[in-house]
């Protein structure tokens, strides 16, 4: 479904990604793990075209994404929950969800998608008239995920959904991610919480200093001696 072939990206003179190749198949949940500053967020930003790839090939459902401008990526079926959630704090929860369904093709199905979102996140329904800025961190993360689901995407990109949350909320968010995967959404998730995300994703890539250092089924990576020592501190 999604394939990156030797993709490089840079910010000015700083190169953030080196020859990254990665595949996501329909129905899969794939994780990209790695330490802080490894280039995980940049990788997702390249896929949504917020960052232009410097080199390499980017394809989604056999279409070349390179010439597609960022604001047309959502209509191709890729929704992105960005780092730090990036809700519109002074819009209500429901208005935030409305923004997630902004493209014209989404509008006739707004009511239907809203029900799907509220079924998945009942808390949001209770708070639908509240400004998003007044939600707790966990609720904000739910709202950000719900917003991305409004367009019924083929591929969901999740950037550090557990960042900055309390341990209880981290558990709840991973449980939700598990449910989203179980409902058949294709998910590419980026996380620093390696142990948790490997329980949710079926496959994973290890990204370090902008390069793919390892890849494979989650169970294999969890048992790899090197990963346990270097990245899990065991």
């Amino acid at each position, binding site marked *: 479904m999604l394939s990156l072939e030797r993709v490089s990206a840079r910010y000015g003179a700083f190169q953030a990604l080196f020859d990254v190749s990665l595949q996501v198949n329909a129905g899969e949940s794939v994780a990209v793990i790695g330490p802080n500053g490894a280039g995980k967020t940049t990788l997702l930003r390249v896929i*949504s*075209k*917020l960052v232009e790839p410097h080199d390499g090939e980017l394809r989604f459902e056999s279409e070349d994404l390179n010439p597609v*401008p*960022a*604001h*047309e*990526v*959502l*209509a191709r079926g890729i*929704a*992105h929950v*960005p780092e730090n959630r*990036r809700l*519109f*704090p*002074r*819009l209500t929860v429901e*208005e935030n969800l*409305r*923004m*997630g369904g*902004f*493209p014209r093709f*989404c*509008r006739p199905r707004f009511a239907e998608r809203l029900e799907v979102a509220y079924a998945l996140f009942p808390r949001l329904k209770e708070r639908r008239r509240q400004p998003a800025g007044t939600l707790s961190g966990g609720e904000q993360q739910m709202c950000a995920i719900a*917003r*991305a689901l409004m*367009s019924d995407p083929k591929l969901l990109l999740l950037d550090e959904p557990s960042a900055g949350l309390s341990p209880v909320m981290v558990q709840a968010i991973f449980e939700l991610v598990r449910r989203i995967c179980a409902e058949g959404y294709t998910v590419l998730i980026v996380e620093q919480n390696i142990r948790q995300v490997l329980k949710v994703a079926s496959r994973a890539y290890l990204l370090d200093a902008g390069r793919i250092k390892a890849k494979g089924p989650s169970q294999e990576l969890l048992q790899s001696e090197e990963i346990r020592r270097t990245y899990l501190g065991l």
Partner: protein
Amino acid sequence: MTELLDIYLLEAVLNGLLLGGLFALLSLGLNLIFGVIDVVWICYAELMMCGMYAVYYLYVQFHWPLALAMLAAIGIVALLGFLLHQFVIRPVLAAEPINQLLVTGGVLFFLQAAATLAFGIDFRNLGLALPALRVGDMSFSAARLIAFGVALLGVLGLFLFLNRTYVGTAIRAISQDRAVMPLMGVSGPRIFAITSALGGALAGLGACLLVLQYDVHPAIGLSFGPIVFLICVLGGLGNLLGGFAAAFVFAQFISIGGYFFAIEWGYVIAFAFFIAAMFWRPRGLFSR
């Protein structure tokens, strides 16, 4: 004698209310542009001047029906707002605020000079004689009543648009987080262009209401520009509700001040109040 005084004071208060409605509408477009695009259109009142000339020429010279002339004027100023954004604001969107202020200031003098060349320095008016409404000993000009009514409708219309439509919601959203908009499938430049045309249309609507009451000449913008700008600052630049309330506060200072002294003193008092307010509440009367 005291009774007489009271009724004229009441008249002044009510006229201040009518003036406040007009000011509220005049400040709306400028405030919207600042709130969303973060740029001050210093030449905003000159856009209104262009709209006033458009109504004048279409109605007086080309004998269009007044309503049609006004609709066309709103369209023309909306187009001017769009062009202003595309050709003047967009290139300096990432520049220092002072540069943005200077380019729109340049447009102010450009429009003034161009209007002088094109239309001459004569004062022109529509030649309408609108009746005055008399209530007891008080009198209110129909032009002011119409302006007040249309201004309130305009304000209401804008609020409904911003709250009830997808594009309106996107306009509010982009003022809160510009960079995330592409992830919503929204083209930021397109929303800015729409907002600019909307700001222009509001300036055009303001022009229609002004031309009912005032003569148009190339420097008319200088009579209203500072007031409109100060009202926006008083309400907290970019805060639409604050600007709305500030318009009424400012108009009462002019109207009641004008009742106790002379109308010029009304302006002096209003501007003195503005300066004092800037010491006391520098981020606007209604800032939180």
